[in-house]
């Protein structure tokens, strides 16, 4: 079960609202390779994992992804403050605004709402771990694209943190390949 700490994992403090870039950043909330997909994927896969180390890793990374989707939502929230009707229309944000006002809805940049088809839970350890490694790279690529398109340093800073986390998660999933565990299910790797 979960506890909630009343803080963001990394600060989000955006001085200048910008509904135009909010529309692309939101893809890391409700898009195919976003943080909601990541958290649901790992938190769902953990149940059928055979070893405690894998259940721990998927629970811990899945939980961290919930913290990341909170950061993305904080960014969208701060980017859509105090908008005039003219700004809403000019930025193209009117299409989202009409259905959600400035609520934060899990949707991709393409305006497709989040769907469970974005995630794989095959129930096979090797398959699921490979899905996870691919997922981290897809997320990293998406952050690369966001950084290509966004100049505001207040926005780039948390995006760069989130991108780095994808790289670290990829490393951890790579290390989690089950051949290293011994027959009793404990860790064979005892190197310091």
């Amino acid at each position, binding site marked *: 079960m979960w506890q909630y700490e009343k803080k963001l994992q990394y600060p989000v403090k955006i001085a200048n609202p910008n509904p135009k870039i909010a529309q692309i950043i939101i893809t890391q909330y409700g898009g195919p390779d976003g943080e909601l997909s990541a958290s649901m994927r790992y938190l769902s896969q953990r149940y059928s994992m055979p070893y405690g180390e894998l259940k721990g*890793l998927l629970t811990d990374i899945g939980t961290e992804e919930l913290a990341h989707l909170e950061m993305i939502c904080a960014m969208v929230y701060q980017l859509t403050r105090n908008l005039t009707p003219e700004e809403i229309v000019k930025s193209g944000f009117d299409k989202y605004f009409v259905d959600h006002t400035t609520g934060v809805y899990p949707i991709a940049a393409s305006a497709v709402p989040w769907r469970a088809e974005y995630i794989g839970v095959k129930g096979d350890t090797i398959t699921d771990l490979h899905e996870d490694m691919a997922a981290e790279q897809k997320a990293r690529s998406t952050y690369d694209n966001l950084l290509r398109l966004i100049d505001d340093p207040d926005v780039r800073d948390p995006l760069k943190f989130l991108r780095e986390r994808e790289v670290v998660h990829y490393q*951890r999933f790579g290390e989690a390949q089950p051949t290293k565990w011994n027959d009793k299910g404990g860790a064979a790797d005892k190197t310091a």
Partner: protein
Amino acid sequence: MDKQLVRRIHAYDFAILEMGLYLDTHPGDTCALQKRQELQAERAALVMEYEEKFGPYVVTDKDVRGDCWTWVNNPWPWECDWGVKHVAV
């Protein structure tokens, strides 16, 4: 309020989380385990220093003390910065 002290504690929060992920795939790494325990002790000392100066370092609903349900107080994390009320927006 002390922004620097709060940020240092948040840095320890992150380091401890990161060590935990590493230990998930290297549970036999006693060196890493010891390092994490050192980080927790260092963090505890900073939290004690903070609480002596500024009162309770509220993190979860379990930390709410006194006669008022301050858990529902603003701001919430997405509204500013780290979201910790002791940090100036």
